[in-house]
């Protein structure tokens, strides 16, 4: 293919978009609809995943310090605890602080008014990096001299891990299904656009145009439609996401739902949308045209 023809072929591709306005419009609308659905679901899953991770972090290990240790000795254990690989954060709580929190947890019930702090022991509240290793870390903590007892809710940790895994698999499955459905719909739309021009393709074949020459304008067109669809869906999703987050902020006074700002999703989202638009546009037009090339 001569370089001088390249400009013509690209121009033809762009011209094709306007010449077959309705089909182009349909292809863009279908791309936008599919990408908004896939993108919306993906960002929802991403946020839910983060929320579950945050919830999981609230599942801590409590390491009770031996009552015989002095305050200074009890505080010095913190260094050893922090040296354990899986420990994200270890907070020292004096027995007085522990009592205060205990009473607060029981709605400041006057029954506990007379309890002496000396009946409790100093402790460390340990947050882990990975709760899947909770049992191992608990065992390592219990081996540290001066730690009398380790309390952890292994069942809750396992429950969170299962929830995360289920969420992970389910989201991948749903996104994969949505992507396949989107590709099929878009590919069909592109096929219809091709069908619209089967006579042009047949004439090009008849006069001796090479397959590459015939394909390029369609691929350029597919590329342009894919990009337009990706950009529109990206900005639509951005607006919808922000609207949802703002609405939630008004309604969700308990702050149960903590959505990440869209700026955090911006780079991966635009990259994915562009890649999907490109893939759908180019691959969709390339494969659809094959059918019409056997003339």
């Amino acid at each position, binding site marked *: 293919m001569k370089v001088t023809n390249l400009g013509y072929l690209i121009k033809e591709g762009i011209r094709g978009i306007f010449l077959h306005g309705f089909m182009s419009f349909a292809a863009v609308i279908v791309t936008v609809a599919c990408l908004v659905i896939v993108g919306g679901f993906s960002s929802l899953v991403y946020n839910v995943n983060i929320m579950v991770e945050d919830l999981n972090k609230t599942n801590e290990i409590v390491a009770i310090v031996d009552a015989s240790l002095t305050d200074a000795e009890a505080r010095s254990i913190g260094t050893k605890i922090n040296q354990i690989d899986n420990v994200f954060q270890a907070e020292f709580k004096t027995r007085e602080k522990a009592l205060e929190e205990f009473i607060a947890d029981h709605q400041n019930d006057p029954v506990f008014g007379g309890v002496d702090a000396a009946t409790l022991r100093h402790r460390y509240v340990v947050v882990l990096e990975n709760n899947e290793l909770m049992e191992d870390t608990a065992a390592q903590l219990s081996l540290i001299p001066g730690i009398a007892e380790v309390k952890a809710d292994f069942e809750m940790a396992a429950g969170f891990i299962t929830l995360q895994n289920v969420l992970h698999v389910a989201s991948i499955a749903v996104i994969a299904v949505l992507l396949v459905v989107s590709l099929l719909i878009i590919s069909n739309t592109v096929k219809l656009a091709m069908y619209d021009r089967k006579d042009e393709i047949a004439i090009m074949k008849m*006069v001796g145009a090479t397959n590459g020459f015939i394909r390029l304008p369609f691929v350029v067109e597919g590329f342009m439609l894919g990009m337009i669809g990706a950009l529109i869906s990206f900005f639509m999703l951005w607006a919808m996401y922000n609207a949802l987050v703002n609405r939630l902020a008004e309604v969700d006074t308990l702050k149960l739902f903590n959505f990440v700002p869209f700026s955090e999703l911006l780079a991966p989202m635009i990259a994915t949308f562009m890649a999907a638009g490109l893939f759908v546009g180019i691959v969709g037009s390339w494969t659809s045209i094959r059918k019409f090339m056997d003339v």
Partner: protein
Amino acid sequence: MIEFNEVTKSYSVGTHALRGVSMQIEDGEFAFLIGPSGSGKSTIIKLITGELEPTSGTVHVNGYSLDRIRKREIPYLRRTVGVVFQDFRLIETKTVYENVAFAMRAIGAREDEIRDRVPYILELVGLENKSRRHPTELSGGEQQRLAIARALVNNPSTIIADEPTGNLDPAMSLEIMSLLQEINNLGTTMLVVTHDRDLVERFGKRVIAINDGVVVHDGMDGYYRV
């Protein structure tokens, strides 16, 4: 030159479209290919343009051996063969000029070549004053002239006209046949597939008659029996 040697063509459904067809059409020759529907005429055209491969035998067209041609060579074969159809097959959204230019662009011609060649071809077929019209604004004869211009613009050595007068009245048919003869006089090999017995006899050219996949007549006198 078009050369068929003992060519057979069978389709997967069991139809034997051609059975041992041999013929030779020399460069610059004018020949009519005639025969009833289903006799194998369309199969011959498709073999010449590389749309089909022969089941057995050899087909040579303008230096290409169709029985062993590679797929990527077929576009280059087609550039040597212009095809004109009964139903014109024009692009209605393009003007007369663009329909012809489109055929040149499709094989990668430069814009300056297109600007030089298209007006010349339109003048040759008598459409120089209608270059801005669309096909739907032309008469049947003019549409066929445009189809001939498109077939001719890439300077093929052979033109195959498949029932070129099938949709035209007798006066128009004569006009189109005269144009094809003029083009043949300029040196282009011409193979015209037709049912029009009057035209065939009037022009007195070579007639190849085919029936049931077999050549039943090949003579130079414009006379035939099928």
